[in-house]
């Protein structure tokens, strides 16, 4: 797994030992889930919220691109409980998570870490950054140092202009 880039107060940082992993969906594997930092796919969360909370550790949410917006709206009051929400890009051209991200940030007020995972390329940093993502698990073949430099260069970029400007 590639290193993570995370936005921090004034800059971006490469995180080499990010602990967050997707929780296994198979029931057997979950019975013996060790302590850790787990991202729970939404369906799993919906089914086992009480059990997950009872583990007494921080938890995150994993969203596939076909997540119905209504399911997120139903979670509105509890979104702040997630330390991380990861939006999955099975291919970088699947833009559904772009709308989901905007909903999470603008409508549902989620202020925590919004992470892009999967097929995350240098070329989509511009869009995801503008949509309020603040962490990126870059695609395996993407040099993290280049992605970091790119994110830093976007600070000055006119391409960051707001569409309503």
């Amino acid at each position: 797994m590639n290193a993570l880039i995370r936005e921090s107060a004034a800059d971006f940082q490469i995180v080499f030992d990010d602990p967050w992993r997707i929780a296994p969906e198979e029931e057997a594997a979950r019975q013996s889930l060790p302590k850790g930092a787990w991202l729970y796919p939404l369906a799993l969360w919906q089914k086992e919220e009480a059990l997950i909370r009872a583990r007494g550790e921080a938890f995150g949410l994993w969203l596939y691109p076909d997540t119905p917006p209504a399911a997120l709206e139903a979670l509105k009051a509890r979104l702040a409980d997630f330390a991380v929400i990861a939006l999955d890009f099975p291919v970088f051209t699947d833009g559904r998570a772009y709308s989901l991200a905007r909903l999470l940030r603008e409508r549902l007020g989620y202020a925590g870490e919004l992470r892009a995972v999967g097929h995350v390329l240098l070329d989509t940093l511009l869009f995801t950054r503008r949509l309020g993502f603040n962490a990126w698990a870059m695609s395996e073949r993407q040099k993290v140092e280049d992605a970091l430099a790119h994110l830093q260069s976007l600070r000055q970029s006119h391409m960051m202009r707001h569409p309503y400007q």
Partner: protein
Amino acid sequence: MYRYNPDDLALIRERAAQFRAQVGRWRSGVLRDDEFRPLRLQNGLYVQRHAPMLRVAVPYGMISSAQLRRLASISRRYDRGYGHFTTRHNLQLNWVRIEDVPDILDELSEVEMHAIQTSGNCIRNVTTDPLAGIAPDEALDPRPLAEILRQWSTLHPEFAFLPRKVKIAISGSVEDRTLAWYHDIGLRLDSGDKEPPTFSVLVGGGLGRTPLRAQIIRRHLPWRHILSYLEAIVRVFNLHGRRDNLYKARLKILVQRLGLAEFSRQVDAEWAHLKDGPATLTEERYQRIAAHFHPPVYRTLAPQAVQPAAQTHPDFARWLARSVHAHKVPGYAAVTLSLKAPGQAPGDITAAQMESVAALADAFSFGEARIAHEQNLVLADVEQGRLFELWQAAQKDALATPSVGLLTDMICCPGGDFCDLANARSTAIAHAIQTRFADLDTLFDLGEISLNISGCVNACGHHHVGNIGILGVDRQGEEFYQITLGGRQGSAARVGKVIGPAVPAARVADVVSGIIAVYRRERRPQESFLQTFERIGSAPFKPCLRADDAKQHAGAVA
């Protein structure tokens, strides 16, 4: 027209630099082909049959003489000295090299041009009326809103990777000259001098494989809410449009699948959150953009009902009848510069012609021109007293073909000579028909007929809405053509009907001759082709497809 501010300019320069870096990463293998492809498409770069093709945007069709000159020099330096105007205010360069494209984009940026979102699954170049701002039937100049739409859609982060492309047209006049009914989203100003102006929003139109007329999703949308309402539509599309099947991914398919009522309900649910939010347009912003489109300083002129030179120059009289359009300012006229000269592929323009249009625009029309979706150019602000002078000058570079609106003013895609998608060589068919109907007396006698040719079902030549539509299809490796009749553009736009089985390429011109012969036989005095077709239906035209019938017209000079 709109002039870029330093931020606009910086944006397109950065975009060009970003593309240069993407080309570099692709060439060094960092970006795979399947990764580079969507990225290059979003910058208008296709890889075609013989060479890459670069599609340059001419947003809502407005172009300056300086831009035309630059396009001419680019086409000479990086291409083969010509370009092709499409039906959506774009100029295509058909013979560029990928490694040159970053330099071309840099050169374009110097004249405030780019190729951003001229392809790819994003919001495409916004189109409007070539007579915007000057048409007598116009209540609101649509260009300030078109520019606002351009700025909004350019690199809109949420809508960078939609299920499929979204084409938007905006019209501010009574008669629709934007083909709004066949766009994914059409905005048509509501009639009546409403203040503030309101729009009807049309949704789910499109040609291509599944031609569907748009439906009215909302009437009386106040102009301030255009962006928030469009965001609601495009968001519903982004989340729910199909991504598993390219051919079922367009917005029109989603609207069809959900039905207008349900689609509208979902849009309204989104809009309830977005309405009156930050996307709401302000008067201040509108006025800031509209200032770029204030009318030029017209002279006070007496309207000129008669052109004296027309008495002595019948060719000029013909050109006047076809190429000159009414203007809302007395003493002025709009003029179509035709790109349909015999022997020229429809929409093609040489570098010399681009420079010639630039010179004519400078001399006659405040240095600006427009691109019409019929693949012609328009000079919008010509003094009536100088029409004869303009006609004489325009003839020199074959820009005064007097066939505007007649049978040989065809709309035609580049076809199989260039395009990877095409099944058929549409321009060869266009050429055969042009040759067949070269006689101006005949053309004028036939009156207004639109003929549209597409080389494949993607319908870039808008064959569905031609009075006569010709579609190239593949029959076991052979080029065949399917004929439709009765299509039309405009406010009452609709698609034509297929009149029978496809015919081989060699027979198409004969079939068209046959169709024209039926019209001449059946028409009543003053009746247009379309009116005759409406009255008699397609039955009398069906025999034209038969080999023995076509034979009668073989080689006929109509």
